[in-house]
Structures are given as structure tokens and as C-alpha cells.
């Protein structure tokens, strides 16, 4: 596969720990989301934020809507030539999937996730063919239409439309002719020193986010 160079549009990256064992109630979700939005606003015009669910024991449907679905919704809705914001949900275990998947589907959204063992998968409203294509890009790290379409036995036009649609849905990042997985983008940005290190939505003082809202 062709290996295009890394463009100057390499995003700023941040890892947000959630500092909440129980992500329950819409109120808490709203507070967590506002904190993450504050964090994203401090990053550059193009950013990729990883939300780490590794320590989250419980997430309910209301909180999943406030945190996961609304962050993705805003990233997808804010269409601008100057800015692009991406989210990846890391450490997503089986018990997180049902609320996150349901919340995203109700809004017709999808999100890139990584399981506890690092396996990539999509959650939310996504066609199986798009999911296969997305996994192929994840496996390659980055790839061009000319390589992907024949590898998946797809028409170039259909494949291109699907890839561009996934970029618009913030599931992939396009750089010139190449489509980059968000995991590859993160690793490259980290190598390029674009990272903001591990940070949290707010100071981990043990107080619920509501207390800091």
C-alpha cells in the first residue's frame, strides 16, 4: 500500500481519564461532557481525544447519551474547513457497549472504540460493509482507495463514498489521498510530539463532577 507522508494537519491529541467509577445520571454525564469539551477547546483546530473507560465500572444509558453521543454529535455537526475534532473510546468492555451503542444509534451516530485488549471496533449506527472497510483501514493504519476497493471486492465509487462518509462521521481521518485510522493517527501524533499527555476532565479530587459544575 502507498504510504503518504504525514501532513501538517496532524491533530493535537489528548487522553482524558474519566475519574468516575460510576458514570450514572444525566447530570453527571453533562458535567463530564462539559469538562471534556473544555479540554478539547484548549487543543488545536484539529484534535483527537481519547476517552479512557478502563476505570469505569458502570455507565448507564442517560450518561452514555450525555457523554458519548453528544460529544460525537458535536464533532460531526461542527463541519468546518478549519477544524476537525475526533474522539476514540478506549478500554470499552462488553458491559459498556450496550448503553453506548444504544445512545449512539438513537442519534444515528457511530464511534471508534478499542476494547480492553486493544481490539478496534465500531459502536452505534453502522452498516456491516462500512464496518469491514473501517477494520481494513485500522489493520493497515492508513490506506488509499486504490488499495482498499480491490482488497474488499468493492466498486471504487462505492468504496470512495463510504470512506468519505466515514470521514464525515469522524470515524476515519483523510489526509490527501490516504485514509487514516484514528488509532494510527494517534500513534503518529504522539511520535510527532503533538500530545498533551494524560489529562482529565478536571482535577481528580474524588468529588463527583457535579460538585465542580
Amino acid at each position, binding site marked *: 500500500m502507498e504510504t503518504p507522508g504525514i501532513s501538517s494537519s496532524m491533530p493535537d491529541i489528548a487522553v482524558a481519564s474519566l475519574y468516575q467509577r460510576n458514570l450514572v445520571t444525566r447530570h453527571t454525564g453533562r458535567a463530564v461532557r462539559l469538562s471534556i469539551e473544555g479540554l478539547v477547546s484548549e487543543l488545536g483546530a484539529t484534535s483527537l481525544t481519547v476517552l479512557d473507560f478502563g476505570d469505569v465500572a*458502570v455507565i448507564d444509558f*442517560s450518561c452514555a447519551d450525555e457523554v458519548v*453521543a453528544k460529544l460525537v454529535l458535536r464533532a460531526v455537526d461542527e463541519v468546518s474547513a478549519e477544524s476537525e475534532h475526533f474522539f476514540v473510546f478506549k478500554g470499552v468492555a462488553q458491559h459498556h457497549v450496550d*448503553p453506548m451503542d444504544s445512545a449512539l444509534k438513537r442519534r444515528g451516530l457511530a464511534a471508534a472504540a478499542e476494547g480492553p485488549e486493544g481490539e478496534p471496533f465500531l459502536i452505534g449506527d453502522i452498516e456491516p460493509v462500512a464496518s469491514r472497510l473501517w477494520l481494513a483501514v485500522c489493520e493497515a493504519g492508513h490506506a488509499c482507495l486504490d488499495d482498499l476497493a480491490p482488497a474488499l471486492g468493492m466498486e471504487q465509487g462505492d468504496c470512495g463514498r463510504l470512506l468519505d462518509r466515514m470521514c464525515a462521521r469522524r470515524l476515519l481521518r483523510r489526509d490527501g489521498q490516504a485514509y487514516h485510522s484514528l488509532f494510527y493517527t494517534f500513534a503518529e501524533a504522539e511520535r510527532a510530539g503533538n500530545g498533551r499527555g494524560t489529562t482529565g476532565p478536571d482535577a481528580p479530587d474524588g468529588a463527583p463532577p457535579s460538585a465542580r459544575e
Partner: protein
Amino acid sequence: MSRVIEVPDVLDHKGFEVLIRALNQVTQEEAARVLFNAKHVRWTSPYGLIGLLAAGRVAYERTGFAPSIEAPDNREVRGYWERMDFWHVAPDVYDLEPVPARVHGASDALLEITPIRSHHDVHAVVEKVRERAATILLNKLHYARPSVIQFSVLLSEVCQNIIEHAEADGWVCAQTYNYRERLGRDVVQLAVMDVGIGFEGSLSAEHSRRHGERWSAGMALERALLHGESRHRDPGRGQGLQAIRRQVDRWHGELGIRSGDAMIASPTQEWGDLAHMRTGLENFPGAQILVVMPAHVENE
């Protein structure tokens, strides 16, 4: 002189209907103190127990006087009420001296009666049940391990229904017992109640005009539980109840929601006694939610 309401000897969801019929009769008359006579109660379910708090709160609001209550004579019932912290919570409603909360050891109560006033209470409830839920759901109901987290999610969503929609405080409690006559198995019963604006009141502004004269408590329950509609236009809202319904169905349990003069149930089970929809019940404010989760058996 107080007007006396006889509390049914079996205080479950059916007994609750009898109780509120008596309450509505008594409080239609001239305002006076109300006495709830529970001396003859010989069995109480979690739904019935917090139903007694809900009925007491309504009596208080209608008469302007905190009602009195006579404790059950039956020692087992008295013990159960104590274990469920009834006497600790009851002074918020009844004319009683405050009683400190018990120190709980091993108990068949999955969750003692807990007032729900804010999202902090929901957090506290989810945190509180984790260990007990693991013990009871895995060892008594023989559910798979993920059910412990699924139960926490369910609990959080039903309690949030109070905070997000009731515009009033409420209560939650859960207990395991053997549902001998009908099922011959252990069940967990979870009950959540408030005496707020109810489903009809909550959904009215957004939906009543569309349905005109057909708009009722029953229709509001149907729109919320079966179609995921809420008072908000936001498509992200209204998924909680549907999620609860799906989860209860996976556990082959029953979910019933009473509001106003109607009660809807979905899913229902052959062993249960909840009808898919009942209307024309005694009017009662707020929402009363009943979840029954039966022990898992191999061939199910």
C-alpha cells in the same frame, strides 16, 4: 378525631390498589388527620411498603396534617419493616419521632428503602447495591456475572425517572423472596415510587395536542414505555425505560408502571399477574414502578 384507613393484610401491588381506594374516599371528606392502621398486615412486598409511604405523603398533602400509623402486630412483618428501614424513612411522611438508621449486617434486602431526591442519591444507591447485588443475583438468582452491572444500570435508570420527570421526591427499595405460590422460585422485586406529576403530566405539553381527547394516563404510559417518547424533543431522551424493558425481558421478568388511573406492563409472564394494560384504576399521583426478576432455570 382521625379518620382511619385500614391497610390491607396483604400489602403488595394489589393491596396498594385497595389502600389508595380507601385513601381517596377518606381524603374526599372533610380535612382531618388520617390514621393508617397496619395492625393486621401479615405480608408486605417492597412495592407495598413504599406504597405506604406514597399513600402517607398524599394524605399529608391533601389534609395538611402528617398522618399517623399503627405498626403491624405480626412480629415477622414488623421485623421486615425494620430491616427495610421503614421506620427510619417514615418520619418524613408520618407523624413519628425520628429513628436512627439501622446498622445492616447480612440481610435479604438487596436495597433498603432509600429516598431519591437528587442525582447524588442515585450515585449512592448504585454504589450501595454493588456487593449485595453480586451475592444475590449470582448465588440466589443464578444470573450470569454481567447481570450485576446490568442491574446497577437498571436501578440508575428507574431512579432517574424520578429526578428527571417527577418534579417530586421518591423512594426505591429491592428485596429477594421466594415467590412460592405462582413460580416456586426466588425473585428479586424492585419498587420505585414518587407522587409527582406522573407520566400524563410529564408528557402532556409535548404530546397531548397531537392525541386530542384520546390523551390519557394510559396513552402516556404506552408512548413512554413502548415508543420511547419523553417530554423532550431530543431523540437522546426516553431511552431509559425502553432499556429497562429490554433488560427485564432478557431476564424473563415483569415490568409494570402505574401512573394516574392506569397501569401498563411489558414484558409480562404467564406466572405473573400483571395485565398488559389496565385503565380506570383509582387515580393516584406520580409513578409507581414494579420490576420482578425471577431466578434463572437451566431450560429457560
